[in-house]
């Protein structure tokens, strides 16, 4: 399983791991969405610290969760993006959605 979901201080945290591609994104998406729709958390955090590889399916995953959280009236945060994923994340422009957050401040 490429995602582990916990909740802390009202926030839903999805710890992603391994390789995110079109194959694995599907399962991850299902898992996160079912939890988010059940709990309606004010904040959903996607933690990328354990992700080793990701292609544009990972970007789709972020954008889709952004939309979902807007729908649910909550907020999406993308946290702990490791250095090797910075390039694809910045290419995608998801930063402009205001969802990126670095380790230090949370």
């Amino acid at each position, binding site marked *: 399983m490429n995602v582990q979901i916990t909740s802390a201080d009202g926030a839903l945290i999805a710890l992603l791991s*391994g*390789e995110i591609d079109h194959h694995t994104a599907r399962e991850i998406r299902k898992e996160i969405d079912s939890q988010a729709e059940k709990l309606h958390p004010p904040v959903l955090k996607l933690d990328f610290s354990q*992700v*080793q*590889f*990701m292609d544009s399916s990972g970007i789709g995953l972020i954008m889709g969760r952004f939309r979902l959280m807007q729908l649910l009236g909550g907020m999406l945060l993308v946290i702990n993006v*490791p*250095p*090797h*994923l*910075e*390039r694809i994340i*910045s*290419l*995608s*422009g*998801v*930063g*402009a*959605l*205001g969802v*990126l*957050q*670095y*380790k*230090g*401040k*949370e």
Partner: protein
Amino acid sequence: MIQNNLGLVHACAKRFKNKGIEYDDLYGAGCEGLIKAVDRFDTEYGVQFSTYAVPVILGEIKRLFRDGGTVKVSRSLKELSMKISKETARFTTEHGREPTISELSQILDIEPGQVAEGVNAGMRPMSLTGASDDSEASQIDIPADDYEEKLTELLSLRQVMYTLSEDDKRLINLRFFKRKTQCETGEILNMSQVQVSRREKKILVQLKEKLTV
């Protein structure tokens, strides 16, 4: 009989050198196999002794790899990839460049092929410019006239992009996604550099307005 066939054991054991098990252990297991083979062999089988013994010897050696071999590959790859990413970061800080696969293979003392399997692509080293554990900024902040930021804004404006005219879309595409200069863009679109510059500014303002709505 055993004495005469130690060569068989050596030949079999030699085969698995450098696979993570000491030669002495390979040889030892092979000898156990040989003893078993000698015990069980019967000339009435109608085959040469070596034909009978080699599979028994190989079988014993194989068991060495079996022990501790019940761990899933997926798990050991995960551990390996963590090691690799650590080593990559360390190397990059020390040398100011990324390591190659063969360099990592030497440092970690494993075959290049295994390094590749463990890499799982993503293991880019820390970027040298942006500190990785930077704690000042919670939001990523890039200087205003930075190309990256423009790109960032543009891309997030996916729906807005669709409201642009075909010509404007092409211009934005050439400038920000294809990384063409204003001159090059002008040439392609049959415009002067100044026209490109003006048009580009207008589009950006237009896009920004739509963004803030």
